[in-house]
């Protein structure tokens, strides 16, 4: 083997990277999770606190930033790796806890396990994440290193065999990369689940001169943050996947379309591209071969619709971000009219793993039709919010009850919303549906980008459907009739229902319109926008019925259908708390000393109900909005 073949060049780079990484491991390393989720929870302050405390004590330790490990409920968090101890992760950090950890663990030798979440390596003293139920179900492929590695340094990626898949592929025929991805049946993680290998092959066959590779990082679903996390925490993994794709299809230029609302992702990716160029993984003659490919970041300007393929291309070409009719598909006529591969962030992230470990390995995880893993952002009424990665085929029940540790006390499961505004709401009876592209579709939801919102008895399904529809209606580009006007009328009808207006005919009318918007719209935004409405109508029809027939909101959410009432039998003369909590002075003291609400003044802000001490619990919401006295009077 000559010294200039890609493998040897890569081995040299890796050796150097390993030396640099190992030299850092000689002293204690504090890794603070500073992805957007961590920063929002105060991680930057925690990082400063660590640095200051270490400085005060005159210790020799390094504080670095890492991405998100997925346990967002415990942010801000940090991992302390001290030689002689297993690396330990601590959550819910504040200045007091930081002080204590520095004093006891870094200066002393007590890892303060009482504050630890888990260790990262097996040991005799403290359990690891794998020992918890979540760890049993989770199988981290693309999230494996997210939050455990320094995203700002390429050597931390290379030292753990990063870019080895590229070196391996470059020593072989590009066709082998394509064959491997095809054989692995890697399905697009953007939501639709189209096989990536087929897409690449179509592009290769169509491309005579130029082909472009674009990564879709325009993640915009409310409550979804998987792509952001991967881009922020492990940018080189995505870059390597894109370079491999470019090698397979023969592209020379690629772009990462990242929404401008993700400034940290943009910054991390830009830095990663710089570093990859310096090391020769990007640019001309990659790893000494005659394969050249370069990448650039393109920032989206905030339109949800630009996640749609044709709208994304329009926006990159300087036109209004609006969808076009298809065909032609992007693989025929994409960016600048040339065949274009457009894949989601996560899809690209799987590619290096597949090249390194093989299609058979990939297919051994998940289900035959949907191999690999699924990444979800778990949010809503669930104990462990955060990012999880589970094999396809895991059931929703396992995901919610085991991985997410179930619902908080007092919460009763009602529905789970999957796939964001294009997805659907599934009830308890659908919880044993395995998570894969086809099963979810059958149940009426979609895999979508992977947002998963758990809802309980206090969530009104009509209000939930209205919430998602308000989002899509707002994000409709306005080009086609069904989406522009149809979603507007759907929203108006739903608003009426939350006010108790309408009848069973209204519900039928809403269903028909939803079906027509689904079948008649130009692009997938309009085609999927009715999903939350159609699924709630299908699974929670009684709740809709209660709104229009009885003027009652069973979840006590819809403001026009509830009133606040202080139950005299529960109220105490000795307590005044609710009076002070009311912003509109609607609460007064009756002659007998108990409190009551002036319905004319009440704005239903819920402050009094929250303020009322638990031993009384005297503030009730009534639906339909009829006072107990009135009911009797009416009965007479």
């Amino acid at each position: 083997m000559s010294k200039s073949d890609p493998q040897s060049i890569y081995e040299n780079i890796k050796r150097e990277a390993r030396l640099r990484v190992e030299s850092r491991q000689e002293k204690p390393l504090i890794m603070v999770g500073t992805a957007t989720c961590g920063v929002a929870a105060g991680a930057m302050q925690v990082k400063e606190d660590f640095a200051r405390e270490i400085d005060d004590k005159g210790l020799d330790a390094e504080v670095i930033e890492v991405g998100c490990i997925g346990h967002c409920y415990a942010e801000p968090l940090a991992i302390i790796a001290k030689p002689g101890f297993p690396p330990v992760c601590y959550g819910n950090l504040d200045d007091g806890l930081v002080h204590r950890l520095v004093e006891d663990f870094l200066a002393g030798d007590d890892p303060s396990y009482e504050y630890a979440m888990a260790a990262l390596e097996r040991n005799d003293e403290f359990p690891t994440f794998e020992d918890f139920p979540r760890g049993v179900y989770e199988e981290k492929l693309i999230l494996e290193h997210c939050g455990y590695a320094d995203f700002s340094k390429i050597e931390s990626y290379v030292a753990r065999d990063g870019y080895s898949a590229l070196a391996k592929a470059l020593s072989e025929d590009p066709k082998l990369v394509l064959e491997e991805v095809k054989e692995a049946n890697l399905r697009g993680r953007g939501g639709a689940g189209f096989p990536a290998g087929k897409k690449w092959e179509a592009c290769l066959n169509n491309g005579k001169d130029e082909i472009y590779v674009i990564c879709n990082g325009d993640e915009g679903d409310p409550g979804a943050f998987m792509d952001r996390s991967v881009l922020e925490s492990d940018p080189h993994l995505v870059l390597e996947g894109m370079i491999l794709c470019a090698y397979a299809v023969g592209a020379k230029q690629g772009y990462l379309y990242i929404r401008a609302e993700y400034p940290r992702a943009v910054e991390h990716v830009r830095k990663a591209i710089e570093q990859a160029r310096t090391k020769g993984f990007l640019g001309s003659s990659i790893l000494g071969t005659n394969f050249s490919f370069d990448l650039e970041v393109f920032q989206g300007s905030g339109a949800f619709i630009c996640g749609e393929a044709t709208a994304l291309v329009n926006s990159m070409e300087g036109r209004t971000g609006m969808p076009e009719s298809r065909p032609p598909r992007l693989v025929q006529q994409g960016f600048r009219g040339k065949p274009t591969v457009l894949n989601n962030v996560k899809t690209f992230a799987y590619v290096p793993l597949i090249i390194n470990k093989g299609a058979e390995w990939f297919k051994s995880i998940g289900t035959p039709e949907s191999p690999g893993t699924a990444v979800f952002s778990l949010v809503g009424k669930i104990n462990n919010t955060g990012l999880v990665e589970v094999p396809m085929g895991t059931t929703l029940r396992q995901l919610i009850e085991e991985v997410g540790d179930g619902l908080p006390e007092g919460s009763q499961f009602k529905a789970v919303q999957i796939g964001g505004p294009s997805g659907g709401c599934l009830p308890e009876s659908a919880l044993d549906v395995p998570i894969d592209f086809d099963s979810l579709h059958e149940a009426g939801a979609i895999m979508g980008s992977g947002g998963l919102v758990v809802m309980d008895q206090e969530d009104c399904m009509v209000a939930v459907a209205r919430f998602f529809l308000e989002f899509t209606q707002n994000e409709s580009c306005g080009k086609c009739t069904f989406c522009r006007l149809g979603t507007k009328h759907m929203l108006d009808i739903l608003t009426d229902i939350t006010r108790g207006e309408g009848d069973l005919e209204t519900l039928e009318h809403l269903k028909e319109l939803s079906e027509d918007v689904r079948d008649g719209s130009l692009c997938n935004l309009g085609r999927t926008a009715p999903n939350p409405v159609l699924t709630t109508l299908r699974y929670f029809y009684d709740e809709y019925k209660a709104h229009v027939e009885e003027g009652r909101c069973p979840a006590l959410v819809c403001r026009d259908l509830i009133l606040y009432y202080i139950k005299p039998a529960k109220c105490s003369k000795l307590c005044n708390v609710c009076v002070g909590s009311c912003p509109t002075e609607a609460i007064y003291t009756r002659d007998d000393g108990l409190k009551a609400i002036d319905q004319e003044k009440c704005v239903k802000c819920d402050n009094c109900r929250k303020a009322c001490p638990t031993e009384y619990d005297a503030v009730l919401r009534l639906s339909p909005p009829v006072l107990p006295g009135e009911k009797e009077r009416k009965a007479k």
Partner: protein
Amino acid sequence: MSDYITMIIDDREVKARRGEKLLWVALDNDIYIPHLCAIKEEKRPNASCRLCFVEIEGHNQPVTACTREVEEGMVVATRSSRVDRLVKTGFELLLSDHNLKCRECPANKNCSLQVIAKKRGLKLKHHRFNPLKREFKLDDSPAEFAFDRSRCVLCGQCTWADRFEAEVGAIGFTNRGIDRVVTTFNDLPLADSICTECKLCVDACPVGALYYKKDQNA
């Protein structure tokens, strides 16, 4: 490969040039399909009015005729219960945002919406959808014509005429979603814009949103 293909539309054998779009083939053969936004010269169809749905054998969903290239042996039905349902809903949605005072409209009896209603037996009335209450300012700044957005169906015929026939570029689409409108740069009155008042846009308007002042009825 021959330049011509044979296909069937509504049980009729039709010859057509390969690569042509189904909508134009049907119209050229006097087979009516409702349409507002389609422009024959436009390479990539707008496909935004969503009225030209037809059934094509082998497809499990109605498809828009303006986007579909004809193929040898293609079998098309311009009517079916699913097609009629979509056209009806699309049409009623457009009417819900359209000024329905036909008698006051200069395009009365010369209006594409009226043609669609007549051909498909649809009523020019607000039926299932409440009319959207919106206020538009009338732009009567040009000498001979005016622009009443309360009648505009956003078909894009005027912007095409302005840009590609007149080659002026005075008007275009702006805003998003339900607020999408045709207007000038910076929303100036037409007379204050770069508009040359060539009136090609007025001739292109299928519904009387852009109209000659001399045709005004009220």
